[in-house]
Structure formats: C-alpha cells, structure tokens
C-alpha cells in the first residue's frame, strides 16, 4: 500500500434524524396531499425533459429560478425601484405618474443639519433622533442578546432532564406575533401594570417603566430580546451540539477549569454559529419596528423612535402622508443595510471556504 494514503471523504449520510422526519412528514401529510403532488410532479416531467434536452442545464437553472424570481422581482425588487423613484418626487399622490419630480430635494431636506451631532439643529430632527436611537439600540440589543442567547444555549446543552421542555420554554415567544408581544409587555410595564402591582407589595416604589426615558429604552431592548432569544439560542445550541464530546473529555482529563474550557474550546468552535447569530440579530435590530411600536409608540417623547417607525409614520401612517421623504429616508437606511449585507456575505463566504477545506 502506498505510504501516502489519501484522506478519502467519509461516505455522506444525512443526519440520523432525517429518515425519521421524512417518514413523519409523509405520515402527517398523508396520501391525500402527496398523491396529487406526486401526480403533478410526474405529469410535468416529460415536458421538462424536452426542455432540458433543448436548453441543457443552463435552461434548467432558469426554470428552477423562474417562479421565485418572478414573484421576487414583482413584489420585492420592483417596489424597491419604485421606492427609489419616489425619493425623487414630492406630493401625496400614490402613483408615480401623478408625482412631481424634485430631484435630490428630499435627501437635501433629510441631510439639512447645522450640526450633525445635534439632531435638534436638523430640518428633520426626528429622522436624526431616530437614527441615533436605532444605532444605540442596535449596539445594546445585539450585544445583550448574544450574551443571553449564549448563556441559554450553554445551559440547554447541559445534561438536563426534559431538555425539550426547557427548549420549548425559551423558544415559545418566537411563535407569538410581534403585536401580541408588544401588547402583553405594555400591560405588564405600564404605570398600572402587572410589574408595578408586583413590586409595590415588596415595598418598592412603582416605576413608570414606559415613561422614564431610560427605562423605556431598556424595555424596548428587553422585550425584543425576550421575543427573539429562543431562535438564536437554538442556532447556538445546534453549534454546541456539534462540538465533539471528546474535546471536553480531554479538557477534563487535563483538569481545565470550566471558564477556561469555555474561552478556549467552546467559544472558538462556536464562532461560525455565533457569527451567523450576530449578523441575523444585527439585521433584525436595524429593522426593529412592531414590538417596539406597540410597546412604547416611540415615546417617551422620541426616546424610542426608531428608523422604521419614522419611515412608516412619515410615509404611511400620518394623515398627511409624505411618501417622498419616507422613501428618501428608507434609501439612506438601505445604504446602512448594504454595509451589513457585505459583512454577512464576507462571513458566509468564509464559512463556505472553510467547509470546502474540511
């Protein structure tokens, strides 16, 4: 046998659970659903074979992409393009043809500030306030979310009884609609809400949680974490479970302290998942809207007014709508998001490369 026995890839097998899932899904969907689906899939095969013969794989790629991209183009891309056009126009009219072209005037209006460090010197002071609030929110919310999600994942990864129950406990709020989340917490936190009712008997002074600026901001952060924690904890949990157990056993043999195990083994191996979580959390944080809107309505004052709410109110919700200004604001916001996209891309590229090397 040659000395340089190459490292052949192990035969690929899906995760053990896959087969169970397929069987389960089949059972659940039942013949009623699968039979017509299967029939339809068979029926379109002959024409597709012809198409494949005529156009080759390039044509097939087009075929597979077409339905999604058609819908995507009409209902996602086109609105974005129209939005860009809106940002160059003024007036309250809905159709572009009825709107007056003003060039970059809306952008000029948004960017018109005497002193960029002080929103109150800007023509659109609330846009800048919203921008500053959003930035602060993103930084605080994402970092806190990452920490709590990591702790939760670490704890759920321990050898617990009824692990799926605990998992469900933390995941459950992900199922609630953002409106419901906002409503529940508003009731808990308002002046005559549940929280104050609970702390008064403890001898504490009631706090007007949603009226004190800092508390309201903290509430917006806390409630959004409450709502999303489970999702991110699950992604991290998946990463933790993929870390080979023998690494921990080796560390235990070496007498490594738990803290050191975490920093030197767990964290580095969790990094790919952690990066995904950070990027997703960043995107969601920049988009923060529903929960915060229902919870604080942007108050007190404008302490929790975020960009999306500003855009929604200016362009849609107020009685005198100004879609042009809102569109311009959303394009500026988009510019920020593109930067985040590039980060996301870089990360996923790096992960793909890593995957290939393995």
């Amino acid at each position, binding site marked *: 046998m040659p000395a340089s026995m190459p490292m052949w890839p192990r035969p690929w097998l899906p995760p053990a659970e896959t087969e169970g899932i397929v069987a389960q899904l089949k059972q659940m969907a039942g013949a009623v659903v699968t039979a017509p689906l299967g029939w339809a899939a068979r029926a379109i095969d002959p024409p597709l074979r012809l198409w494949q013969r005529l156009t080759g794989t390039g044509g097939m790629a087009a075929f597979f992409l077409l339905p999604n991209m058609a819908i995507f183009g009409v209902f996602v891309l086109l609105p974005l393009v129209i939005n860009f056009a809106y940002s160059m126009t003024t*007036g309250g009219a809905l*159709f572009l043809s009825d709107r007056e072209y003003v060039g970059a005037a809306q952008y000029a209006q948004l960017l018109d500030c005497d002193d960029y460090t002080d929103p109150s010197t800007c023509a659109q002071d609330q846009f800048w306030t919203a921008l500053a609030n959003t930035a602060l929110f993103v930084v605080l919310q994402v970092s806190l979310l990452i920490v709590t999600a990591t702790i939760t994942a670490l704890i759920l990864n321990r050898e617990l009884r009824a692990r799926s129950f605990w998992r469900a406990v933390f995941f459950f709020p992900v199922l609630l609609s953002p409106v419901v989340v906002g409503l529940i917490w508003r009731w808990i936190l308002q002046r005559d809400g549940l929280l104050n009712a609970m702390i008064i008997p403890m001898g504490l002074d009631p706090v007007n949680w949603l009226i004190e600026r800092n508390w309201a901001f903290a509430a917006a952060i806390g409630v959004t974490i409450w709502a999303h924690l489970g999702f991110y904890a699950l992604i991290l949990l998946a990463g933790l479970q993929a870390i080979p157990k023998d690494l921990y056993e080796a560390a235990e043999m070496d007498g490594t302290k738990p803290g050191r195990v975490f920093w030197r083994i767990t964290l580095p191996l969790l990094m790919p998942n952690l990066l995904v979580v950070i990027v997703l959390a960043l995107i969601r944080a920049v988009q923060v809207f529903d929960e915060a809107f229902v919870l604080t309505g942007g108050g007190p004052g404008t302490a929790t007014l975020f960009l999306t709410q500003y855009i929604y109110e200016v362009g849609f919700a107020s*009685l005198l709508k100004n879609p042009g200004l809102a569109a311009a604001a959303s394009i500026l916001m988009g510019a920020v998001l593109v930067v985040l996209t590039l980060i996301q891309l870089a990360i996923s590229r790096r992960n793909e490369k890593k995957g290939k090397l393995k």
Partner: protein
Amino acid sequence: MIPTMKRTMTALAALGFGMMTSAAWAGDVRVMWYSDGVEGEVIADLLNRFMEQNPDINVILDNVAYKVVQEQLQIQLEAGTGPDIARVTNLKALASHWLDLTPHLQDPAYWEANFGDYADWMREDGSTAINGFLTQLTLTGGFANKTLFEQAGVAIPGDDATWDDWIAAASEVQASQQTAAAFAIDRSGHRISGPNASYGANYIGPDRAPLPVDAGTKAFAEKLVAWTNDGKMLKDTWVSASGSTYRAAADDFINAAIPFYYSGSWQVANLSTKIGDGFDWVATGSPCGTAGCSGLGGGAGLVAIKYTQNPEDVAKVMEYLGSAAVVKEFSERTLFLPAHKGVASAGGLAWASEDPNVGPALDKFVEASGDIVPAAAALPAWKWGSAYYGALANRISQVMAGELTLDDAYARIDADVAEAVAAAGGN
C-alpha cells in the same frame, strides 16, 4: 383621464387574475365602518332592516379597524378604488373623493335643512355638494369623578370656572385622595384645540392657510407643560408615544387614577359600561380661558364615495340612514349626539341606558355646544386641521418629555405644518 386609465388597467389585471378579486356586483353597496363601541351592531341592525325593505340592494358592511380608515382609505381612494360608503373622520382632507349625492337624492332640501350646518366639514371649499352626513356630533369636554371630589370634600367647580380653577380643585383632590395625577387630556392635537381657542388661539389665516402658533395656543401649551412638570397632568398619556399617535386617558379615569378628565362626548357610552357602579361621574363641559369656555366640535361622517358603480343605490342607503327616525334610533342606542337638526331640536331622545350618569352627561354636552367660540367652530371645516393637530401633539409631547423647549416646539410646529402643506402640493 388618468384615473380612468388606471381603472382600465386595474380591470385588465383583475381579468388576468381571474376570480381572485371579488369584484363588486351591481346592486352591491359596500359600507366601510369602524366602531368605538356598539355602533357596529346597531348599524348592522339598521342595514338589515333596510335590506328587508329593499331586497334588490345588497348592503355589505365591512367592519374595519379605525387604523384602516385613517391610513389605508386614502390610498385606496387615490387608486380609484374603495368602498361605496365610508365612515370617516378625516372628512375635509379627503373631500375630493366624495360623491355629490344631490342629483340622486329625492329631497335635497331635507338634507340641506337637517345636515346643512355641517356640510362644509366634508366638502371641498366653495362647493355646495351634499356628500353625506355626520353619524354623530362630538364635542370635547371634561368629566369629573364626583365621588372622588366628594370624598376629598372639594366642590366641583361651576360652569364659568377657568382651567386654572379646575386644575387647582383637581389637585386638591389629588392631594387628598392620593390619585396618580389631577387630570389628563387625551393625546391629540384636536383635544387641546378647543381649550386653545378658549385662550384666543386661531389657526386659520385670512387665505385659509395655516397661521403660525399664536399667543392663545402658547398660553394653553405653557400651562399644559407646567402642569405636566409638576405632576398635575398625567404624564403617561402624552409622553408615552411619539409622532401624532393618539392615546386616550379613559382607562385612568375609569380606574379613578385621575379626578378630572378632558376628552369628549363619545366617551359617555364607554365610561358608563366600564365604570358601572364604581363611582359617580359628571360631564362638566369645557373649562374657561380668557376668550371663552370652548370645546371643539367634531364627528364622524358617513360619506358616499365617487368611485361607486351604482350611485343610485348608494343614495337610497344614505337616504335611509339619514332619515330622522333612523338617526334618532341610532343616536339613542349608541349614546351619540345626533347631528340632525330636526332630531336634535325636537329633543326627547330616549337614551338606551339605565346608568343615571348618562342622561345628564349627554345633556351637558348638548348645553356646552352653545359655548363653542368662532375660532373653534371654524376648525372642523378647515382642510389643514389634521396637519395642525398632528404637529401640536407631536411637538408639545416632546416638550413634556424634556426634549424640546417650548420656543423650539413652536418653531417646529410651524415648520411641520408648512412642510405638510408643501408635501400635499400646497393647494
């Protein structure tokens, strides 16, 4: 021209999508309706009765959230779609979309006579069209928790008491009864515009363009901010939101957290249901300022929409709903003040409530409607009203939250209103 093209396009697209859209059939009349309380059920009853009498007309009642009327209806109308009839509060700003019912009505004179006083609230400036009628007349005004006042041993201020008198009295109650605050006003520019007018404010310039914030508005705004800062005015309501979001303080009044509450006549039914036997309450009318003791009128109007396919049927529905007997029954059952001159002047409305607080309260509002000062009376028929109200609520609450000074706020209000006017095309 352009709207026609658009509708052709829409129709073509609808064909393309086959039966996906439920196109309106001839003989169908769609009513978009929002409810604050029981009026949705009452109108459904009335419409069912109408359909029994007119089997050829099918009236479909779409109950929607107020948000839909407020935010989406305008866009539907812009697109040349929408219901046939809608219950709307933003009457003046959308006036260009309403249908002139005059040629379709059997007796336009009846409408002119009974609803004519408020016709300007919903038609374009200078028009003589009949677009619909007010389902209810509302008037802003105060409510006092009589029981709290009695327990505190404070006399309820009289009819000519000023705002300062009222707040002083309510503060005594606050101190004695340990309530959260002395009073609250709903978070709405509309709500403070009556009091502003009582201090001499006027928003409307000679050319019907908005005027800058004047001394009257400033006088009341300063008081509001001062009252908020020293804890007399419930901070939550105004400070707890940004923008022009509406927030009511009714729950705080119901909960006896405030002895005095400035809201409006529409709250009567709500207060009656929720307070029940909890305490006694009275309507107080509007406290006085230096220029009067004015509230602000308002109301929700039921209007016909000009994109309807069958205006004749729409007119029939409107005639039925606007008839004196129906208006009377509607008002009695919903505890709303009727905007029908004949019904209002005839009096003798049998309010459908056993609550002893309800009758006197409604009577008080009718009485207080005589105190509306001209500057306030002109507001409902003014197209920039919503813009002005929105800016007031938005900016004054920022002052209360400590984000702006009053002077900055005034400048911002003027700028916001000017911007809104400019964005709307300035016409």
